[in-house]
């Protein structure tokens, strides 16, 4: 993203004031506030980070450090459908990389990236605790288990079909 350009068109709708002000002005709520912002926008907009810095009287650099340290937080926008490929040990030995490769091939992006049309994001997660279904992935809130490359193709095609409707 072009940050220089972004600064000029500062978008006030992204400053997340209403989310931030629900919490007391104490440093110990920093992570909770960032998580709420993440939940609302599916990422942490620069504007929100600046607003929060002002609110808590902390340097933006500190918050930037938090936003990049914690995996649950992201500084770049995520897609409409978030695909989480479980790469816990049980899934890994059951072939989660095969699942990931298939998704990456179909969407033309790597894990951690988002498609250009902002429809899909792929990420790997460490364990979603559905080891009995390994290898498993989640698309938004739905679990898909015991996956084979063929199944991945079919499932994704269904979501892509929805997109074209």
């Amino acid at each position: 993203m072009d940050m220089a350009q972004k600064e000029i068109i500062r978008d006030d709708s992204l400053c997340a004031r209403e989310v931030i002000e629900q919490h007391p002005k104490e440093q110990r709520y920093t992570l909770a506030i960032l998580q709420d912002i993440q939940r609302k926008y599916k990422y942490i907009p620069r504007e929100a980070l600046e607003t929060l810095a002002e609110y808590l009287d902390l340097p933006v650099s500190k918050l930037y450090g938090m936003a990049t340290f914690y995996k649950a937080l992201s500084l770049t926008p995520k897609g409409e459908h978030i695909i989480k490929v479980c790469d816990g040990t049980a899934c890994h030995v059951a072939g989660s990389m095969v699942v990931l490769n298939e998704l990456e091939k179909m969407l033309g992006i790597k894990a951690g990236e988002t498609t250009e049309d902002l429809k899909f994001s792929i990420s790997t997660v460490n364990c979603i605790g559905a080891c009995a279904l390994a290898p498993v992935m989640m698309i938004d809130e739905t679990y898909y288990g015991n996956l084979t490359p063929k199944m991945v193709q079919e499932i994704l095609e269904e979501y892509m079909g929805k997109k074209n409707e």
Partner: protein
Amino acid sequence: MSKMKTIYICCGTGCIAKNSKIVLAEFNKKLEELGVSANVEGKEEEKATGKMKPTGCNGICEKGPVVKIEPDGITYFKVKAEDVEEIITKTIINGEVIDKLLYFEPSIKKRVRHFKDSEFLKRQHKVALRHIGEVDPTSIEDYIELGGFEALKKAVLQMKPAEVLKEVTDSGLRGRGGAGFPTGRKWNTAASIDTDVKYVVCNGDEGDPGAFMDRSIMESDPYSVVEGMTIGAYTIGGTQGFAYIRDEYGLAIENMQGAINTARERGLLGKNILGTGFSFDIEIVRGGGAFVCGESTALLSSIEGKVGEPRAKYIHTTEVGLWGQPTALNNVETWANIPIIVTKGGSWYGSLGTMEKSKGTKAFSLVGKVKNTGLVEVPMGTTLREIIFDIGGGVLNNRPFKAVQIGGPSGGCLPEDHLDIPVDYESLVKADSMMGSGGMIVMDDRTCIVDVTRYYLNFLAEESCGKCVPCREGVKRMLEIVTDICEGNGREGDIEELLEISTMVRQAALCGLGKSAPNPVIASIRYFRDEFEEHIKNKRCRAGVCKPLTTFIINDEKCKGCSLCKKNCPVNCITGEIKKPHEIDIDKCVRCGNCINMCKFDAVKVK
């Protein structure tokens, strides 16, 4: 036979993923349609049309969704929405058993009516998981009915803090999060410091991939954790508690919050608990998805609203912890053990487990290539063989057993000749593995040990907080070497270099994560050196996992031409007519290994 029947439906995450909520909705719908007044939620006085109230994980996620019908004592497995009508008309109305939905017990080759009669449960001893699957986690009445809060009453009304401390010390309970520090000693330090503000913290940041014991406890029996923490606070003089829970564990957070709120309403938490003047409250903090936050000092830093970096522990957190105050930090499973220790006494708990230093029981999540994937709890000292083969039912599809990984990213893979070692803190460390939080991952011949080593190093490299150089750089270098080996670029001397870096990181890293980071490398090389050498010298991955080192071929003599592999090949590179040996086009093959997994005749091989 009682006319009123209670239908328990497992709605742990494993079963939800297998559509148990759809089954539950179907039950509600069908019961209403048919006008049957059983109830699907767990409470007899409620109508069948009650709202969703899941029971927690029954432990055998592999066979989910699990449906228990009481008082008939019938347990059904893999229940689908289509089965619901039959269950209602046959079992609920007429008391008939539907044979095909019962658990098949392999040891006697028969189906058993009640799950309690299976080897899976008979060999277990549930202490920390005592209520799981038996109570509705959102109901305080269910918990109280099974003796809940008796321990808290006993502690605050009849015992002095020092007496509670003595029971916990006598029990020999050690931290169930992995390191195994004696809980009594930890509490003693915190209790002995004279200050107004002390904290009690529950570590629910279960980060080990393949481990979900803590999540299941918080989801399915949150009151035990709340009660345990309150007793802990009474013992050390704690004023405020925090439960740090992974943000990914939505249901666990919801149920824990519900339990905290209800306990507070009932005067079991908050100001003036049970009218004794003792006050203590618990707040939930959601984790941010950083593995290192499972480390105590990093976790406390995260609660304070900072980046979760650990610090050197010259001074323990029990003395200088959260905001510089004495803090008793224990893991979820440890807290869940506290109420029953207070009720039954420290010597009772101490009588379980090994006679030496590992007392009590330990919960494990048994996953990977094992038949009965799920949650198990056994007395310390049970052998790996008993857990994997007797409780777990052996390796999936009866493939050869290769290794079992214990202790998460800080543990190690143990080979078959180590299956008879007892599972306790000391024996595992001696074998270059560790207890860890309780993930137990079974691996078969289709698992490449070098790849698994790379997997753990990659995990640790990503999760290393970057504060100290040995961990940040050492783990990264090891990852580079092992990645090279997996990609066919391994060189002579790589193994020695890995061991050298391992020794350095083990000695020089700052925190527990770094110090134990080389464990997977050391254990893998110790037990599976030949596999590393095969990768380096022969450029062959015998498991068929490392793609550049793998070529799949079909054995003409064994192939029956069923064409199952052909149908399931994602790149259509398998050719051949029905009932004639098939062939793989090696140039088109993407080495996904789907064919080898599919083949029922063991005809696909790694060249």
